[in-house]
């Protein structure tokens, strides 16, 4: 379980982007909602251990992450994956990108490929996987690649920042289905300013506004709130 305790966050001394935030992420799908600029991305980055909070603690399975030593931090972090809203790709082919997470873990290509190919099949993006250079792809295609790259690792914790923002309508259902499959074994946290397509399959929901959590509860309740 990843637990946020009284988290405050500010970028280099500016105003606080997160104010006194408490949250817990365990198995299941959590939707983080809120208008643009409400602090969703920062919340996800703090939760996924990319940013260190200005104040407050982030506990992973009851241990304060930022008090750990480097090798222990790495061990914990390997189970926590974050996917950016604007997709980031590395130079090389699509397969280079999809296999990158496995390469970081020193896994052999064969093992890595099996899971990657299963997802490629599932998301019906075979033609894309054969692309040699990622440079010329559209932003939606890049986002799909970034999602598959993360999902294939089957992390215990998966943080997705607006994963559907650039994905083509025809593929959104498949992405949601893949997330639904994974949520029984992992904690998935998805931020979105448009929660409707996700709330129906989500377990928990979090609404933040101006850096504060204003609602925390079951997804069904949130659905009523939104509707």
């Amino acid at each position: 379980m990843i637990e946020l305790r009284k988290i405050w966050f500010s970028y280099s001394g500016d105003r606080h982007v997160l104010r006194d935030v408490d949250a817990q992420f365990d198995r299941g799908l959590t939707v983080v909602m809120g208008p643009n600029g409400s602090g969703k991305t920062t919340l996800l980055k703090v939760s996924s251990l990319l940013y260190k909070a200005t104040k407050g603690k982030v506990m992973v399975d009851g241990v304060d992450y930022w008090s750990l030593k480097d090798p222990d931090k790495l061990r914990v972090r390997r189970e926590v994956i974050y996917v950016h809203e604007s997709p980031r790709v590395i130079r090389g082919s699509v397969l280079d990108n999809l296999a990158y997470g496995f390469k970081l873990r020193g896994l052999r290509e064969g093992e890595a490929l099996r899971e990657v190919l299963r997802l490629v099949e599932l998301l019906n993006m075979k033609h894309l996987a054969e692309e040699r250079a990622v440079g010329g792809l559209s932003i939606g295609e890049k986002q799909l690649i970034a999602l598959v790259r993360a999902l294939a690792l089957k992390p215990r914790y998966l943080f997705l920042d607006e994963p559907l923002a650039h994905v083509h309508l025809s593929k959104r259902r498949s992405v949601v289905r893949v997330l639904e499959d994974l949520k029984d074994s992992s904690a998935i946290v998805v931020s979105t300013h448009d929660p409707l397509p996700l709330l129906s399959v989500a377990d928990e929901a979090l609404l933040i506004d101006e850096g504060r959590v204003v609602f925390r509860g079951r997804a069904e309740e949130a659905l009523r709130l939104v509707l």
Partner: protein
Amino acid sequence: MTMCGEILDVVARSLLISSSATLLAAAWSIPASVKLASSRSRWRDPVVGVFNALVGFPAVLVGLLVYLAFSRSGPLGWLNLLYTPQAIIIGQAALITPLFISLSYELFARAIDNYWELAVSLGASKLQAYGLVVKEVLGEVLVVVLVAFARAIGELGVALLVGGNIKGTTRVLTTAIALEVEKGEFDKALTLGLLLLLAIVVVAMSSRLIKRRLS
């Protein structure tokens, strides 16, 4: 020595001195830019601003400052470096440092923003993350190195003041050109100028080739 041999000697020395200066400047500028780019300190922007402003610092002034430092009556006089190729190397390295840091800071700031965070978010160790950043920016760093080298080999002030334009030891292309102009030997000055241009173009072309290989 024949005239032709003398000119080749000057060209070779220019290339050697300025490439050493570029490497020396790279040795501190690249780590400094990485450090700056990954820093969250509120001093970062002012520091970068100072380096940006210093890019336009005149070479003659850098030359004068380095001369005063290395002069026998100066604080570093005991090193006995004045009027040696090494002194030019250090002076040129100091001259191109602001340019080097300004250009590579931008590069690393972008790369760290993009790739460092990407690598870490996918479970990379710090070493692996830096590995990705370096791999992704290597080609562009090479261009920065080339620009810095061009500035070093094309400058006159430092080479003249700190090197002394001594035939056979510290005479480089730019000081030789200045000398020929002062002597009124414009033809010879133009020939040397062409060679300087040629040297820069050759280095630029070859680094472009390497860059294409890398990416």
